């Protein structure tokens, strides 16, 4: 925690900005959407420009005050929780579109812009961005790039970073850095890999550990002319995994804007809730929903191809799940938390993991094992298809008043189980930092980079624990 006198002095120096020092307001900065223990913000500021961010960082550095950065606060990893106290830079008021260059296919935005706002502006030009996170209508672009968001667009691209043309970042010493082609100011943002190694990547998924993102350049993509959802059912996760391997190796995901996989138990629960008399013998053991977007004839062609590949692995279209759930989820623009809430209407601990498609059955087995080992919690799981591999979301629903310690232990257990199943668990809160430390040389290099860019350790340690 900061010295009261230095905090007061800092507050005085920043008084021309929108500043919050009342404990009631600061309560809202103590945690994100994760189950990670809350921190305690001592001061919060809402800058409106990059220049103000530079000024804030310079003042905070003079007082050796810890800095955390927050966008919409919708992430589920605890990276913004201010465990060391200090100052929270809340970028939610930095919401401008700085440049929209349709010829170059790039939009440059401030970090606090909400996705829904940005998408509405781009839709007027028939455009959209590559990845739209599943974390909801309060999610910001800055938060998404700082946390490796995924969601809509993942089957076409991968993760958030694959759709970023460049960044503007303010470093701990106040340096204002532009990456990608924008290192040449007259050139601006249009390509990412121009000058030697890719510094953009250093700030992606880094929770502001290395710098504060003040502008994000995203590539634009045409909005699809038509959209359509459908679901494929498989007897087992193993059969679904073989299908996914072939789909990815044949690049059949170019027009798939979103695809999610659901365990048999989830499918059964939803179908029976809507149609209690449904013949359970016909329910699949694993179901994958597809949201296709393209010209109508391309959708028909890709849908037929996907169905044919599914058939070769014993799968077939399963319309009830699309009608009951998946179509509404996608076309009514609901979000993942809505999905999670619909499932259990309670607080949800989310652990994300990357996994190759061929490990899908192991992933599902790990979830079954968690159900048996932690029966007091309600478990759910879903996978999001990426251009390569999958992202798996593991959800533990719990009562925070009585079950927080239990849920925390269970998520730690899940992390270990998933690692043993060949997955790469991340965003599991404090354990993620421990996981990164186990990487050895990789972690030591990150540490050295942190030391070089932020020697006083002013900026948030983030999920990496740096």
């Amino acid at each position, binding site marked *: 925690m900061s010295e009261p006198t230095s905090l007061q002095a800092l507050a005085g120096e920043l008084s021309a900005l929108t500043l919050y020092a*009342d404990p009631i307001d600061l309560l*809202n900065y103590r945690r994100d959407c994760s189950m990670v223990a809350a921190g305690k913000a001592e001061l919060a500021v809402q800058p409106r420009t990059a220049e103000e961010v530079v000024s804030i960082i310079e003042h905070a550095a003079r007082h050796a005050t810890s800095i955390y950065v927050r966008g919409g606060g919708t992430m589920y990893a605890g990276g913004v929780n201010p465990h060391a106290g200090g100052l929270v830079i809340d970028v939610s008021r930095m919401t401008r579109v700085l440049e929209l260059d349709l010829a170059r296919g790039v939009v440059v935005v401030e970090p606090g812009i909400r996705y829904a706002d940005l998408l509405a502006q781009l839709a007027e030009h028939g455009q959209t961005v590559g990845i739209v996170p599943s974390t909801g209508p309060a999610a910001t672009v800055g938060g998404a790039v700082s946390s490796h968001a995924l969601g809509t667009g993942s089957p076409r691209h991968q993760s958030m970073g694959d759709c970023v043309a460049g960044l503007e970042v303010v470093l701990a010493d106040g340096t204002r850095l532009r990456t990608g082609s924008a290192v040449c100011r007259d050139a601006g943002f249009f390509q990412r890999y121009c000058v030697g190694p890719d510094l953009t990547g250093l700030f992606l998924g880094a929770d502001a550990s290395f710098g504060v993102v003040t502008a994000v350049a995203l590539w634009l993509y045409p909005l699809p002319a038509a959209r359509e959802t459908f679901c494929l059912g498989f007897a087992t996760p193993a059969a679904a995994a073989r299908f996914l391997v072939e789909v990815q190796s044949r690049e059949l995901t170019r027009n798939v804007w979103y695809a999610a996989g659901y365990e048999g138990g989830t499918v059964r629960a939803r179908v029976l809730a809507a149609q209690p008399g449904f013949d359970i013998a016909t329910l699949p053991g694993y179901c994958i929903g597809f949201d296709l977007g393209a010209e109508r004839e391309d959708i028909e062609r890709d849908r037929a191809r996907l169905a044919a590949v599914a058939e070769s692995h014993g799968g077939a279209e399963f319309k009830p799940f699309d009608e009951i759930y998946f179509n509404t989820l996608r076309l009514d623009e609901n979000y993942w938390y809505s999905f999670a809430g619909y499932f259990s209407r309670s607080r949800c601990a989310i652990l994300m993991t990357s996994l190759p498609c061929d490990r899908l059955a192991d992933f599902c087995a790990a979830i079954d094992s968690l159900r048996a080992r932690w029966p007091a919690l309600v478990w759910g799981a879903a996978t999001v298809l990426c251009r390569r591999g999958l992202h798996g979301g593991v959800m533990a629903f719990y009562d925070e008043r009585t079950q927080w310690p239990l849920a925390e232990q269970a998520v730690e257990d899940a992390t270990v189980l998933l690692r043993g199943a060949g997955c790469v668990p991340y965003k599991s809160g404090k354990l993620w930092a421990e996981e990164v430390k186990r990487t050895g040389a990789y972690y030591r290099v990150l540490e050295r980079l942190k030391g070089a860019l932020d020697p006083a350790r002013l900026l948030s340690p983030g999920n990496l624990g740096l």
Partner: protein
Amino acid sequence: MTKPIEKLSEDFVSRYERDLYHCSSCNYCVDAVWPERGMHAVCATMEHHSRAPGYSGRGYIEAARAILEGQPLDGEALAERVFTCTGCGNCEAACPIGLRPAAVGLALREELLAADCLPPALASARDAFIAHGNPYGVAREQRYAWATGLARGGDEADTSFFAGCAAALASGEEAQASLALLHAAGLQPRLAGEGCCGAPLAELGLRREGEALARAVAAQLARGGDVLVAGCECGRQLATVGVASRSVAHWLCAAHAAGRVRLGWKHDVTRPAAVQLVESCQLKGESRDGDEAAVAALLASLDVALLNPDFPNRHANCCGAGGGMPAMAPAAAARMARARLPQAGVAVSLDARCARHLRACADEGIEVLGFATFIARYFTLEAGPTA
């Protein structure tokens, strides 16, 4: 810290513990932008009064939870935040798991009242209410001044009309217009209620006192008959004591659709080119959700052009009439009102309280009318073929 709030009542905990501990802090209730649902900003107070997160739905949940877990909070600072909530309910509509942050805020008002932390601007409003039995400082004996000379039903009438304070006392015009519409349709309702329904007290955090007044009104209604109200908040308040009512607007729409009344443009008035309908937060949810949609359909059938064809937007921001905003932050309340009004022309609200506030804040060239006043001014009404 003056007047620290160190604990919450057992009643509060028993009613809202689940909301405090199942909130995932997803921030939908703070800052959701959800165009598909017509939600462009969740909270009018945060848009026009303060961006401090303590003013949000999540802010109320965080504050209550902090107190419950042993962190005392300053009563006056908390009161400034929870009493400026307009009660529009958008934060609850945004919550993905059905939690009730607005209700938590309302319950915190009760806790703050118990700790003598009513903001000064509202304390004077409360005192005026207690002195006069209504929020507008009108003498009790003037409650039915608006109805002087108008016919009214006796004890035998099976329909009751409860005008409510905003329609009856703030100007009287809306109450008169409502009654005139009922008369034109051949109804002669009993004028019910010797006093306020208690909605303003409930909004101040005096829930039980408000319910007592609602029960007093309920006792004066015709037994088993139709209960019509001019004020939307009155209908909501009466529902808390088990009285089912409907707005005059709802009655008119239903009667018109069933052919019991006929409406036609008056020939001696200049028709407005278009009208902006302003949603009332009091008509969100519950059984009244269809009232405004019915009005939109009625006006469309009468060839009234709307300036806001997306009406009713269930996530529209409050006009500033709600909660403690008008008394505590009148400038912000006026900004909220102007954000809901057209650049020029006629605006119509189904809620007499909203209409009063909008009228007070409207720029020159904008006329704000209650729904019944609008109908009575521009349309003739007579009993229809199926009356």
